[in-house]
């Protein structure tokens, strides 16, 4: 079974600081998103069970070290990597990313199962999987917490808002995973060394027969919220604090209604 895992790298959010309400990303290292690690783990486990190949597919999207960062996916057990690195991918919106991924999947040729995280760690729009599935004309299963494949079909247990569903779709299909699906492995030194010799292809948009996709949305602003809160702290003994606190909440009308 040929599995393609779509892997996004994004700035390490733990290291993003806010200055004058603006997120500071200069110099912040990128890493593979958390849910993409879950998707990679699921892919490697599935390949080990049913045979086949795992390809990690990544759009550089302005990450100059994407080729370096994607080696982590190879160390986790992916067999090959493919990167689309083109200046025109730096500020693509989700429709543009899906267009590029669909073209790259077609160029890869064989793909039975396309795996995604249910959203990226940074912006978490969850759009790329559904758009890509539509472009490729394949069914999609979102929020999988278990993935099995047999007899030309994929069967998933998916975690919805208030229920669990077991669903099945014929391959090829696109599946997104949630964090509870597995605990992603942390590759050891041996696997990191071996990853260096695994095949990696790098494509430009022209290699995929694409021109830069036209944007379909515009970001008007992207700022940290200004908090408008009262900031009242109560002093004294625990009993005094509790008394003043409860009195304040009664006055606000949220207690003693």
């Amino acid at each position, binding site marked *: 079974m040929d599995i393609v895992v779509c892997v996004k790298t994004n700035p390490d959010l733990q290291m993003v600081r806010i200055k004058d309400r603006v997120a500071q990303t200069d110099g912040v290292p990128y890493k593979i998103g958390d849910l993409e690690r879950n998707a990679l783990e699921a892919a490697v486990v599935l390949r080990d069970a049913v045979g086949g190949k795992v390809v990690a597919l990544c759009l550089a999207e302005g990450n100059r070290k994407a080729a370096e960062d994607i080696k982590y996916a190879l160390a986790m057990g992916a067999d090959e990597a493919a990167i689309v690195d083109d200046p025109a991918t730096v500020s693509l919106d989700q429709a543009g990313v899906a267009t590029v991924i669909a073209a790259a999947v077609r160029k890869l040729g064989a793909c039975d199962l396309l795996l995604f995280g249910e959203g990226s760690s940074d*912006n978490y729009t969850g759009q790329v999987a559904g758009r890509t599935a539509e472009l490729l004309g394949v069914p999609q299963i979102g929020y999988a917490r278990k993935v099995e494949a047999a007899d030309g079909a994929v069967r998933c247990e998916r975690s919805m808002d208030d229920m669990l569903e077991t669903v099945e779709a014929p391959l090829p299909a696109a599946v997104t995973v949630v964090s509870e699906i597995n605990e992603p492995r942390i590759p050891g030194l041996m696997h990191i060394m071996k990853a260096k010799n695994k095949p990696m292809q790098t494509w430009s948009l022209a290699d995929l027969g694409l021109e830069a996709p036209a944007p379909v949305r515009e970001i008007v602003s992207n700022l940290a919220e200004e908090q408008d809160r009262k900031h009242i702290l109560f002093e004294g003994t625990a009993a005094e604090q509790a008394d003043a606190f409860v009195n304040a909440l009664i006055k606000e009308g949220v207690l003693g209604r």
Partner: protein
Amino acid sequence: MAELFVYSEKIDTARELVAGGVQIASSLGMTVSAAALGPNAGAAAAELASAGAAKVYVSEDPALDGWPADAVAAALAQIAGQAGAAIVLVGSTRRGKETAPRLAQKLGAGCVTDVNSCAIEDGELIAGRYAFGGATVAREKVTTPVKVFAVMPKTFSAEGATPDAGKVVNVSLTLESKVKVIDRRAKEGDHVNLDAAPLIVGVGRGFDKREDLALGDELAAAMGAVVGCTKSLADFEWLGEDRIIGLSGAKTAPDLYLGVGVSGQIQHTVGVAGAKLIAAVNKDKEAPLFAMADYGIVGDLYEVVPALIERLKSV
């Protein structure tokens, strides 16, 4: 007049979208229509038609059973096409968030998901959503002729909608789903509904061990509140996943959120930022939750919470 068209498989969310849609549509000179899809859609349609939608399109096509993304997206695209919809609002539940991008792709439309605020500026709908893991709010506009927005439940209030006698229109659609539902069951756990809770006590890592959470339960009971938690407590399996508040759980909008032993990491606080009042109990006065709190007690929760429980007895 161009149509603003709303859909959610959850009737409460659909009613909110109708109410919010009416406001947006009146600023933009549009009319509001809705879709009700799947088994028993007829009943939902009648409700939406009386809640302010001028027209409600209904299909009980069997392919819509279980609301698979491929069939629902196809249904909405066909209806939007027939109706000449210029704006589509979909409820950003898990099913809705899965469906909206596929719908947008079918319509050649831009899309914004997880929208939690809407504004009209220069005749354009500007949608707000969290970005950078919740650290910022991105305000986005869609630049295609047809625009799709997946709007979070509770972004709009269904209250105050002007009841109207809308028209229910049965539509015939060409649908197929390749996704087959084998089994469906309710999630285990105690099924707390944090979305609807007016008062929430959030518990976090300030509790030393699992048994100590009884203190949080007792406080919540004394207030008539529901207990929610940070993701780490669910990761420890101290509480079920349906208690998680934040980026990977519920986005709540209670009248009061009281965080006890909750430091206030952004991944959690995006789920409480919508609270009318935020309060915090923490022994660390530098805890980020205090910076976004209306009321706070700096103190050891093991002393403060029993004092609160005692005080609440006389409320």
